[in-house]
């Protein structure tokens, strides 16, 4: 017979306000196997935990039920308290009478109290059959794989490598640097992008811990966190295949620009003198096609009147992308100032809807374009750009004056939307990372877990997750590296034992559990032809146990017997 102790928490007035905790204690003392029951103001506090430890010893308890808040809050706390007093961690269970009773039935004291009693009753039924368990320890390969050799990938690789771990950096093209390598001077100081990049590239190429594979692609990812098996193919004179054992993967695959041919009303793809942001950057590069000079693509003349159109394809839920591409307001201010420096007598006009300059020094930078460089900022979305008499006529409206405005431009630069890479979905499939409604790789939680994906061991960095500029990309890359390092700092990986197992005697090899598992944790044993559980991936959701026709599959401490006892106790 198990000796069960029950500790009912007031949680201040969070529980005691709606639930009559004293009556709960009186009633639960009557349950079989309950040898001790008490209520206390704050069970999670030091004295509260001491109460548990003391009574485990005094009353020789085998198991403990703490009736309190959700297990996500303090299950670990109370399990540790139990262990400290000598009972197995998995003999401590939580009965949630706060979120599930007090907080949702605030005005119904009688009903809330009754529900609390019933909740505790079911948990007692479960705990009666709990086994003492020990966690699983899994080995961990401390080598990282970074997909993408742009600024995000390089930063992550450097941070992990500098911590002493080997990194494999896989880059699709033949060079490192990504889209940053296509830029000219960067805001705010017009630092040369190639100059800044070269430092990172040199550091990466020289680093003894980083293996760089260019002209390479990841073709398969098997395994699980700490133990991925990644196949890479590199195209040289011949195709070379690699297979790596990897502990953590970081996706830093970057972005693409929305094709300007989608913006027909702006002449994108139709007129050579209508270009996009990256094409203008190329012109400013000393090693670019115009040798660093601003020229009209059509006739090579110096443009005297240049128009930038912001939000070309962004913030347009009806026709193009609904979201804001984040970086354009800043790079347009930069490009317009660069243009005025190259062509001091020229006119620059920027058509915008809003100005988003959210960074250190960003607002002042944009104001500088307006005040010092005399760039004319016009609030109003451009309706049409068309060719007329050798120049491009731009039709817009100045909403501030309430007047239509027409500019005869020599060159029009469209700040087109930043979109996911065309193969983002395939990358997601490979890594088991979902993509969001726009096609960007999905983070685990938008506020609190921005660099992790929902797949353990796969992290995200840079514009692959959402448009962002270089400072944010570098910050996120270092964040992803920190996650990798925190994984690698473990001697082994710990997995909770409250996961599924298969009774080999009972399993008939029907295979129903395999598609039932949302975590890809089930497989068929090669030659024994019974089902197996991947202990690293299993999350203990019990979907497999539910479908198993033989009851061969069970979840530890949530066996069919336990579940049925809980139902009976409740009824």
């Amino acid at each position, binding site marked *: 017979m198990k000796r069960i102790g029950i500790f009912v928490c007031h949680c201040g007035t969070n529980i005691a306000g709606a639930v009559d905790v004293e009556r709960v204690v009186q009633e639960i003392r009557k349950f079989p196997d309950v040898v001790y029951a008490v209520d206390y103001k704050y069970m999670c506090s030091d004295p509260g935990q001491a109460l548990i430890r003391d009574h485990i010893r005094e009353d020789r308890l085998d198991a403990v039920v703490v009736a309190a808040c959700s297990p996500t809050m303090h299950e670990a706390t109370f399990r540790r308290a139990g262990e400290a007093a000598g009972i197995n961690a998995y003999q401590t269970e939580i009965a949630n009478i706060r979120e599930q009773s007090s907080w949702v039935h605030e005005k119904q004291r009688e009903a809330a109290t009754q529900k609390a009693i019933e909740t505790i009753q079911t948990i007692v039924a479960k705990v009666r059959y709990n086994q003492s368990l020990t966690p699983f320890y899994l080995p961990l390969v401390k080598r990282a794989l970074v997909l993408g050799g742009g600024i995000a990938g390089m930063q992550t690789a450097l941070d992990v490598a500098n911590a002493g771990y080997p990194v494999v950096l896989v880059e699709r093209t033949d060079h490192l640097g990504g889209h940053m390598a296509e830029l000219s001077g960067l805001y705010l100081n017009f630092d040369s992008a190639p100059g800044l990049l070269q430092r990172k590239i040199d550091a990466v190429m020289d680093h003894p811990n980083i293996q760089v594979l260019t002209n390479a692609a990841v073709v398969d990812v098997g395994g699980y966190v700490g133990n991925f098996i990644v196949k890479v193919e590199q195209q040289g004179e011949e195709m070379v295949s690699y297979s790596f054992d990897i502990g953590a993967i970081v996706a830093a695959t970057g972005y693409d620009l929305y094709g300007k041919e989608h913006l027909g009303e702006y002449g994108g793809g139709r007129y050579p003198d209508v270009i996009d942001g990256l094409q203008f950057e190329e012109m400013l590069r000393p090693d670019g096609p115009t040798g660093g000079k601003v020229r009209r693509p059509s006739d090579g003349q110096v443009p005297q009147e240049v128009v930038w159109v912001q939000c070309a394809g962004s913030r347009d839920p009806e026709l193009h992308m609904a979201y804001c591409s984040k970086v354009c307001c800043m790079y347009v201010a930069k490009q317009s100032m660069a243009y005025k420096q190259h062509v001091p007598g020229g006119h620059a006009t920027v058509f915008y809807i809003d100005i988003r300059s959210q960074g250190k020094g960003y607002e002042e930078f944009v104001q500088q374009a307006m005040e010092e460089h005399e760039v004319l900022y016009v609030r109003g979305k451009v309706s049409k750009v068309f060719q007329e008499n050798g120049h491009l006529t731009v039709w817009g409206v100045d909403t*501030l*004056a309430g007047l239509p405005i027409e500019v005869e431009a020599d060159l029009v630069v469209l700040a087109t939307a930043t979109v996911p890479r065309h193969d983002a979905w395939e990358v997601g499939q490979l890594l088991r990372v979902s993509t969001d409604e726009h096609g960007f790789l999905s983070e685990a939680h938008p506020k609190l877990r921005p660099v992790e994906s929902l797949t353990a061991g796969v992290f995200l960095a840079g514009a692959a997750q959402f448009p962002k500029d270089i400072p944010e990309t570098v910050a996120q890359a270092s964040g992803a590296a920190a996650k990798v390092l925190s994984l690698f700092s473990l001697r082994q990986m710990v997995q909770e034992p409250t996961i599924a197992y298969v009774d080999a005697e009972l399993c008939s090899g029907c295979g129903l559990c395999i598609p039932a598992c949302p975590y890809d944790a089930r497989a068929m044993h090669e030659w024994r032809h019974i089902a197996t559980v991947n202990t690293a991936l299993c999350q203990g959701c019990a979907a497999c146990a539910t479908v198993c026709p033989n009851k061969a599959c069970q979840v530890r401490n949530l066996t069919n017997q336990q579940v049925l006892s809980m139902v009976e106790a409740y009824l």
Partner: protein
Amino acid sequence: MKPDLTFVEQVSELSHQNVRRCYYCLRCSAGCPAAPFMEYTPAQILRLVQLGQKEVLLHSSAIWLCIGCETCGTRCPNEIHAGAVIDALRQLALAEKVPVGERTVWKLHEAFLDSIRHWGRLHELTMLMQYKLTSRDLFSDLDMGLAMFLRGKIHPLPQRIAGLEQIQRLFAMTGKDVEVE
């Protein structure tokens, strides 16, 4: 409308205001007591300056309705005194002999300054007479005028001050005499 980008330079210099700093938050228009009566509110006036719409501005009545309370400049986050810009536009309108948008405003202004130039200090009675005759409006404000007279606010005879030549030197220093229809 095609923007003319040179006008903003001229007006900025004349008014000593950095018109390009304006980001059209419209706080000036929001606080301006005359705004409800203006066809272009202060922020719109600044925008039209920025866009070089000189003719529209100099011919408007809006630039003559500013009362100089400086609420705009006090509250502007970019420290632009829209009133000073409007003043500069008035100067340009007069210099280019544009028919004044609010004639009575100009006539009162002239009558007021004429009185000060003549006597060194304002003499309401003769100022008002000049204003009424030049604005060709004899009969409005008669009741207020009578009330003021009965309370002793209208002195019948002007008084010339002692340092009159100093006042007149100020007039000479600050600009040419401008004749306007």
